């Protein structure tokens, strides 16, 4: 807690992160341990500690760069960064927030569209059946991502091993699930 009366007005992404998920980016002193241990850091256009540094500048151009980055979508929520961060900065929660904000502000990086498409397809199948319907997921995902040929050989092998259902399992509480989706949808950041 700080002296509210002595604080300058802040309008940055870092401030939004502080307010919404209680992650304080100013705590970071750039040791880089998160980037050192991140399994996807080499794939990222900006490794996690670099994202932290950009946030610390509270500069609008930097904020936009972050929301348009691939990095926020490449984060796989493995939590390695958090478990090793000396300052216990909850980067995974922050990444969740950045993704939600990026969608809201329509700034999703074009290269990340597959990932967003997959998440949306995933939730979509749950919304209508209550459980994951893998075939439905794949069809919905292909429709969204337009990757028609991907994994075309995998499905038959899965079917032969009894790992893919043809008919979705509908749970009795499906209306309840739809209700949950509806009630939580307006809560998106």
């Amino acid at each position: 807690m700080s002296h509210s009366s002595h604080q300058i007005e802040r309008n940055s992404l870092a401030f939004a992160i502080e307010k919404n998920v209680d992650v304080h980016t100013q705590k970071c002193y750039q040791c880089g341990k998160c980037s050192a241990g991140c399994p996807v850091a080499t794939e990222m256009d900006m490794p996690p500690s670099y994202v932290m540094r950009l946030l610390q500048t509270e500069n609008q151009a930097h904020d936009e760069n972050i929301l348009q980055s691939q990095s926020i979508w490449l984060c796989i929520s493995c939590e390695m960064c958090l478990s090793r961060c000396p300052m216990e900065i909850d980067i995974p929660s922050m990444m969740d927030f950045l993704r939600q904000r990026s969608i809201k502000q329509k700034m999703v990086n074009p290269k990340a569209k597959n990932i967003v498409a997959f998440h949306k397809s995933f939730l979509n199948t749950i919304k209508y059946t209550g459980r994951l319907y893998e075939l439905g997921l794949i069809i919905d995902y292909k429709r969204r991502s337009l990757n028609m040929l991907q994994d075309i050989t995998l499905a038959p092998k899965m079917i032969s091993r009894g790992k893919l259902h043809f008919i979705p399992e509908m749970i009795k509480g499906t209306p309840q699930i739809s209700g949950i989706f509806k009630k939580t949808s307006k809560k998106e950041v």
Partner: protein
Amino acid sequence: MHNLILKAKELLENKIVSVIIGFETGSSGKVRPVFITDSNKADSLIFDERCIQNLAVYLTKKEVKQFGKMGIVATLPIMRSIMVLISEQQLSPENVVVLGISGDGEVLDFADITVMQHYIEKCELGNPAKEQDMLATLNRLNMQEKFEFWQKEFSKCIKCYACRQSCPMCYCTRCAVECNQPQWIPVQSNNLGNMEWHILRAMHLAGRCISCGECGRACPVGIPCHLLTMHLVDQAQSYFGVYAGISDKMSSVLSTYAPNDKESFII
């Protein structure tokens, strides 16, 4: 309300507490505090928007403590009072079970004080809206007008000390007004002494008041004395960034300091 009664019964039946401090409807239809020791009588417990008294005042009373472990129906101000009482060693956390009531009247399950603390931290801790407006109005007056306002109010004071009796934080065995060497506050009621009493009271609650407003409600002649302590609640927040009663370990504003405390009037 149903949940509240169930929870109270559960606590009494399992002998987790010996008494539940809560609210019931009195014979005149008015809400009044009730001390339930028998689970069969728990059905009389109520909770609605009329239940605003700060029951924490009873937690330090010998007559209530003698029952043993106490359960208390607690709205946010009561929870915060409990925090202050624990941090000032007037109440042991082992000796109290809190039946929390959320802002929208639901029963909150607190596994322990830490969870309650977590809940309190998330709540809006400032003064109630109505008082905020009154404070703003008063703050707009000039010095002379303020002085006259309070002079008029204090002229009503009959030194009954209801403000003191109703406040959970006024638990001293001997109040400073009862001190006669020197006699800080004159015994009889007069404008000067009344004002000195209210300043003394407000200063003693500085950084300890949790904005329940009980003192103002208790005053039989309607002096808005709660505005004095609530004004200091605002000040403690703006200068030191703290509210009272948000942790069982905190020290009050006036018993701690930060080397970088800011002010602008000391030359």
